[in-house]
């Protein structure tokens, strides 16, 4: 279990290549990567992510530990950035490894659903006409009920 929260970029390809390398018990790996989208042609939004140092790591540890009790995982990884991010930049990733694909998929979706609504990150988007905190979606909160 590897959890990292930092401002600097991470190398998604290198993380995917390294995750689970050399293990013989892994039959399935699922990764998710969240990326800053560009919006509104011609306007290049900037994103700033605020977080709660200390609680963030604690919350992610709890979510990952819960995933490991629910599914037979060989390994799991969460990386999340904070600070300023430009369109096209990778915000975060999760990776899960298991003997079978159903466990790897379910755990990755679970990690994402809980990370979205239970880990203390907040996104602020800036455009030419001002900046706004991204509103939480009711659908994200609702997604938790399926677990």
């Amino acid at each position, binding site marked *: 279990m590897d959890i990292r929260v930092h401002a600097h970029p991470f190398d998604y390809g290198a993380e995917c290549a390294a995750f689970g390398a050399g293990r013989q018990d892994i039959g399935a790996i699922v990764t998710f990567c*969240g990326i800053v989208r560009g919006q509104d042609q011609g306007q290049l939004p900037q994103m700033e*992510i*605020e*977080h*709660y140092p*200390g*609680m963030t790591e*604690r*919350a992610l540890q709890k979510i990952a530990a819960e995933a490991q009790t629910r599914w037979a995982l060989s390994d799991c990884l969460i990386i*999340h950035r904070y600070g300023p991010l430009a369109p096209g930049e990778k*915000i*975060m990733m999760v990776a899960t490894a298991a003997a079978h694909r159903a466990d790897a998929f379910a755990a990755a979706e679970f990690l*994402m659903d809980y*990370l*979205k*609504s*239970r*880990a*203390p*990150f*907040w*996104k*602020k988007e800036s455009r030419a006409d001002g900046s706004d*905190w*991204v*509103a*939480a979606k009711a659908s994200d*909160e609702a997604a938790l009920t399926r677990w």
Partner: protein
Amino acid sequence: MTLEILYFAWLRERIGLPRETVQTNAATVADLVAELCAREERYALAFSDLSALRVAVDQDLTEFDAPLAGAREVAFFPPMTGG
């Protein structure tokens, strides 16, 4: 008791500071919020809709009716939007 209070995202902006130390005898989070709101208008405005806010006591998410006995750090913030 002495409590460290933290504010994040738009709550931090509305209150105008990221953290402060308060002396309080509040029994619950809700009592603490009432004390803060009584202090200044900007607190009352920021905390006017608790359904739009979340609270963590000692870095664990909890409810507004949670007791504060033994707590050292209370954080208020809007619903999270990570990922």
